[in-house]
């Protein structure tokens, strides 16, 4: 991860497809499953997360030589939580409907492993410029994944999509898809489809490789086979 030879374009695009945080690296599963009952909520959550990711990456990479190594985790947490509070205010003021539908999951952006993971893996080791690109790419990839999830669940579960009514399905929508169980099912199928398209060997570990605590737990908590 640390090589600096990569082109700026590569830093931007890697998060969208090749290292898509949700569908490939399996990070940030909680918001992916929770808010994607509608495509619009997925986009809103994705953009809010991108905002926080952008802010925290900029600040953390700017302060990377100032923050002592021993207290870096609490420092990152404070920086991330501040940006979450900020986006909470902005949404409450300007887009109250989205604020209401995201509810507690907006607060929980603080503990989204994507943001924490990028801070630890990327922003604390790279300059501001590439960190901005990295944040934009990762945020966009996350937004796309959420939009995809939200679209599938909204179309199948309620027969609507972004305000449009889908014929045939809307007469008897499969309610299960907007229930929690449908979230797990849809995500499982989408990841399987990504595996099939990418002809990639399925990852055996859930997010452990990118987890900021992988070092301290040594992968033990994940019970490697």
């Amino acid at each position, binding site marked *: 991860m640390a090589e600096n030879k990569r082109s700026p374009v590569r830093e931007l695009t890697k998060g969208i497809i090749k290292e898509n945080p949700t569908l490939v690296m399996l990070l940030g599963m909680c*918001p992916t499953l929770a808010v994607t009952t509608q495509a619009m909520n997925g986009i809103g959550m994705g953009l809010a997360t991108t905002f926080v990711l952008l802010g925290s990456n900029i600040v953390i990479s700017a302060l990377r030589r100032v923050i002592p190594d021993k207290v870096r985790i609490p420092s990152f947490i404070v920086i991330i939580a501040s940006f979450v509070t900020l986006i*909470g205010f902005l949404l409450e003021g300007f887009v109250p409907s989205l604020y209401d539908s995201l509810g507690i999951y907006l607060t929980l952006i603080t503990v989204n492993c994507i943001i924490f993971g990028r801070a630890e893996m990327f922003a604390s080791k790279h300059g501001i410029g590439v960190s901005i690109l990295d944040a934009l790419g990762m945020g966009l990839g996350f937004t796309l994944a959420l939009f995809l999830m939200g679209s599938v669940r909204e179309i199948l579960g309620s027969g609507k999509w972004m305000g449009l009514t889908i014929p045939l399905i809307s007469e008897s929508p499969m309610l299960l898809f907007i229930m929690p*169980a449908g979230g*797990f099912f849809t995500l499982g199928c989408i990841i399987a489809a990504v595996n099939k398209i990418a002809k990639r060997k399925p990852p055996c570990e859930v997010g452990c490789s990118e987890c900021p*605590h992988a070092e301290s737990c040594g992968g033990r908590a994940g019970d490697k086979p």
Partner: protein
Amino acid sequence: MKTLLVILMSAMLTDNFVLSKFMGICPFLGVSKKLDSASGMGIAVTFVMICATIVTYPIHHGILVPNHLEYFDTVVFILVIALFVQIVETVLKKTIPSLYKSLGVYLPLITTNCAVLGVTVLNIDNGYGFLQSIVSALGAGLGFMLALVIFSGVRRKLEFADIPETFKGVPATLIAASIVSVSFMGFSGLFG
């Protein structure tokens, strides 16, 4: 008394944190391969949830609300949780090394477990009293443990199942989780 029981049971079953609120999915998928690690993680999370609630409740109602600083909730709570996990780790290491050995590996993972931050924020949002908050944290923790333990049993069976190549690994796990979640839907409406 009755309301406390309702809070406990609904936090545990009807509004199960993992299966209907999607909080703590990472440990749910990561640590549920073996029964003993699933129950260890469950106990550690329950313990931290209760302790975090005991600490954050007085901070919110005693310090932040009188000074009109409610919007600092997120920053303060997550710091308290991170600090608390650190303290628990240090104290356990010095006093009960045997317990530390079995729970120690899960403790650093708990800081970024959204279920812990989730339960403290939800307790404030729902306007629970002190005792109610503790009971709701206990229920959330027990529900988390229940989901993990049940799911570790499902995953054991899953290991021997013949799954199509593309569905192997995470996709099959998620679909199994969806079926477990359907079974928890049976509890809805149990405690109006």
